[in-house]
């Protein structure tokens, strides 16, 4: 004790002050560490909302360059929209439709790639998903407010222009053609999913930490959530504004097709936008909605439409051929989930019950 006190006495006043300052600094560091710990788990992400593909585009991007990446991705989504919307004058699809029955048209590699993927889904789904359904969707025109059911004659007339065989692709030359005048393609069934793909490609190029993008009801997640854990995607309840449950995913893309989206009721019958390309009428397969997870955004979008049109058992078989997973919500309130999602989907809404796949 004597030794240390003597040693202490030998220290100058200045040295004592320095030590006291060091002690204070140490305490400050500890306090700051406690206060700042929560920030280590993420920091605030950049959130921006834009409008494209006939829908809102909501991005949440984590990382230092989040803001820049979100703007860049929004630009990429808009650029894609300008090529693949049938309304975009001078865009790939508008030119292709304009030259139907006329000539082969040179298209961007991206557009041809999407058309090729669409043709594959068309074949494997037996035509349940078909981008050449445009003549029918334009006839029904669920975007306007007229809410009229077209006559059977008109539907039959348009049906003769619908079919995967009318769209021909040359992936080596990046060209495509529609065989007859009256043929047309509409990529509305894959545009939102493809937009998620485009955004995630930007995130990867710019090396953002993590991000989630929602284009309407199509979702893409990128990277690992800063707070840890999986990405939680709420699945909309077809009968309310709330959600029916939550899907927790590590990566990939999710899209939903539901009869509640674009629809109208006439004489007690619900007419919705998910048309069966074989009948020209809204598909009635006992389903309210289908949510599909896939590694590819455009694919998840197409498969959700195809599954709704095919119905539960054929839809589930289709998902398997593409390595995709799905959630089928039936009109009777039963919810069936493919094996790959059984662990990650949590049903939370009341009035529904899980059931085995049909």
């Amino acid at each position, binding site marked *: *004790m004597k*030794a*240390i006190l003597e*040693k202490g006495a030998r220290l100058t006043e200045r040295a*004592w002050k320095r*030590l*006291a300052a*060091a*002690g*204070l600094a*140490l*305490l400050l560091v*500890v*306090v700051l*560490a*406690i*206060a700042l*710990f*929560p920030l280590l*788990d993420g920091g605030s992400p950049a959130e921006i909302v834009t409008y494209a593909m006939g829908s809102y585009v909501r991005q949440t991007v984590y990382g230092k360059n989040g803001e820049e990446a979100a703007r860049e991705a929004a630009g990429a989504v808009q650029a894609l929209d300008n090529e693949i919307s049938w309304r975009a004058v001078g865009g790939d699809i508008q030119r292709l439709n304009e030259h139907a029955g006329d000539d082969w048209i040179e298209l961007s590699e991206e557009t041809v790639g999407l058309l090729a993927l669409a043709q594959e889904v068309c074949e494997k789904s037996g035509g349940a998903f078909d981008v050449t359904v445009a003549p029918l969707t334009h006839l029904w025109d669920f975007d306007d407010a007229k809410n009229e059911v077209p006559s059977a004659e008109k539907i039959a007339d348009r049906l003769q222009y619908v079919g995967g065989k009318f769209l021909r692709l040359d992936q080596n030359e990046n060209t495509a053609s529609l065989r007859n005048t009256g043929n047309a393609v509409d990529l509305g069934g894959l545009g939102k999913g493809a937009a998620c793909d485009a955004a995630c490609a930007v995130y990867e190029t710019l090396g953002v930490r993590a991000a989630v993008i929602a284009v309407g009801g199509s979702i893409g997640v990128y990277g690992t959530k800063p*707070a*840890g*854990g999986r990405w939680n995607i709420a699945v909309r309840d077809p009968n309310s504004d709330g959600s029916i449950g939550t899907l927790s995913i590590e990566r990939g893309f999710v899209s939903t097709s539901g009869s509640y989206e674009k629809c109208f009721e006439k004489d007690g019958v619900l007419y919705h936008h998910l048309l069966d390309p074989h009948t020209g009428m809204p598909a009635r397969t006992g389903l309210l909605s289908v949510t599909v997870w896939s590694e590819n955004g455009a694919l998840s979008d197409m498969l959700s439409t195809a599954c709704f049109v095919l119905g539960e058992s054929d839809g589930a078989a289709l998902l398997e051929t593409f390595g995709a997973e799905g959630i089928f919500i039936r009109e009777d309130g039963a919810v069936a989930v493919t094996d790959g999602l059984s662990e990650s989907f949590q049903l939370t809404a009341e009035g529904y019950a899980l059931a085995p796949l049909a």
Partner: protein
Amino acid sequence: MDKKNAAKHAALCGLLGALALSLSYLEGLLPPLPGIPPGAKPGLSNLAVLAAADLLGLPAALSLAVLKGGFAFLTRGVTPGIMSLSGGLLSAPAMTLILRKTKLSPLFAGVTGALAHNAAQLAAARFLTGPAAWGYAPGMLLLGVVSGLLTGACFSGISAVLEKAFGHRTP
């Protein structure tokens, strides 16, 4: 160190060890305080570690922290054991540093130790469960300051007695 001092040293170690364990046990009996995370303790057993840091030095203080961790492990389970150990291993050096290397009072050392203890526990809880643990940060901060002041004051009170009885310090 002569024989007499060695004996005193051993006796003091034993005494402080017993003090640490009995305070740990008493704390365990306290009901959870409203607004303060369940499972968090005022950290009164840090009193023994603080005394060891002052009278015996860092090795003894660290040994006490390990002892406390082992006690928590045996009586309360693996998780509380990890929590206690991680807290003790950070707070013991922090208190030793403040007490022995600066002119600051035991109050300050107690507060630093308690905050270091809680920071380590919070980090351990985050690792064991998830981001939910961060919700406890404000409670842990307040608890750390209050219990640190308390242990610091208690230590100032009992140190006179301890020094009279054992009258020696390890430099």
